[in-house]
């Protein structure tokens, strides 16, 4: 456990050292062309390595757009962020605790419904989400039509159609990332509303969670994870708060206590 915690921390420090003007996470299901998007954006300016302490490969690359240096982190391909595997845990931990300036979710246009699960989970953690609908040429071949502006309306985040293999739409993607990160246009992603029992439980604990987190993490999301009772995420939240707590703020210490109690 210890090595995992320090692993994330080391990795974050490694990124912090050389991050340029913004850090963007790339998430997506396996086989959506996520790495193609990554390669086309960063070209040769990349390096791969192992996530410290885990046998998960990650790649980090950079590109320049409108005088800004952007660092892109290619996360492992996952179906979910609910951490059934090490890959998912790494992806989730980076999006939650790595605080990227934006997260791009790459989805396969030919099976959107399967892919949107992950997109919704990312949007639950961070509003700074961009949906990159890749492989639209394949969708066209399969006679599928996708209403991208409707999708953007429904999700409340930018939706960019691409064919990364042929470099189609990548300019739009860069522009969209630029806008989300530097123009600080607040995004209002669609919120998932759960059934009454869950919503009232969230309501009960969210206020307390909110007061304790003081904006360091998304309180609704933390409340949901506490309700899940998933021990791995509760431990990570605990560790994260501990790292944040080095200035010894009494309220944060209380937050730790609450997280510990729920765990």
């Amino acid at each position, binding site marked *: 456990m210890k090595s995992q915690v320090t692993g994330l921390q080391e990795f974050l420090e490694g990124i912090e050292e050389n991050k340029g003007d913004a850090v963007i996470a790339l998430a997506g299901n396996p086989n959506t062309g996520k790495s193609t998007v990554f390669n086309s954006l960063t070209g040769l300016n990349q390096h791969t390595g192992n996530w410290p302490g885990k046998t998960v490969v990650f790649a980090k690359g950079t590109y320049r757009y409108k005088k800004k240096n952007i660092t892109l982190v290619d996360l492992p391909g996952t*179906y*979910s962020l*609910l951490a*059934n595997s090490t890959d998912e845990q790494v992806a989730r931990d980076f999006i939650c605790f790595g605080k990227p300036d934006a997260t791009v979710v790459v989805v396969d246009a*030919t*099976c959107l*419904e*399967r892919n949107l*699960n992950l997109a919704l989970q990312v949007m639950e953690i961070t509003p700074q989400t961009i949906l990159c609908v890749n492989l639209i040429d394949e969708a066209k071949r399969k006679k599928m039509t996708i209403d991208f502006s409707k999708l953007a309306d429904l999700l409340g985040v930018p939706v960019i159609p691409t064919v990364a293999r042929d470099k189609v739409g990548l300019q739009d993607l860069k522009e969209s990332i630029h806008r989300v990160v530097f123009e600080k246009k607040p995004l209002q992603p669609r919120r998932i509303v759960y059934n009454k029992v869950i919503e009232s439980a969230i309501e009960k604990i969210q206020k307390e969670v909110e007061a304790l987190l003081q904006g360091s993490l998304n309180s609704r999301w933390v409340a949901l994870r506490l309700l899940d009772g998933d021990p791995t995420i509760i431990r990570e939240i605990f560790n994260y708060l501990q790292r944040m707590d080095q200035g010894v703020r009494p309220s944060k210490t209380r937050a730790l206590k609450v997280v510990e109690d729920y765990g």
Partner: protein
Amino acid sequence: MFDQVFALTYLPMGRKAQVVKVETEGLIRNRLLDLGLVPSTIVEAIRKSPAGDPIAYKIRGAVIALRSEESRQIQVRAVD
């Protein structure tokens, strides 16, 4: 046969069924839901491995192999 609910394991090759319920708990349940096995999803049995287990299913545009351990816990209704 049409309204009968049975375990996905018993779906004949080449036939389709609709998910009624996933009867597991915890991480395996999460995993199955993440793979798209939510109620009303159409699942098609595509092929069996030589030993008869696992079986490959077409689920929401992807082919996914499930062990009988898992497919036993997924309640479905035949659709064709």
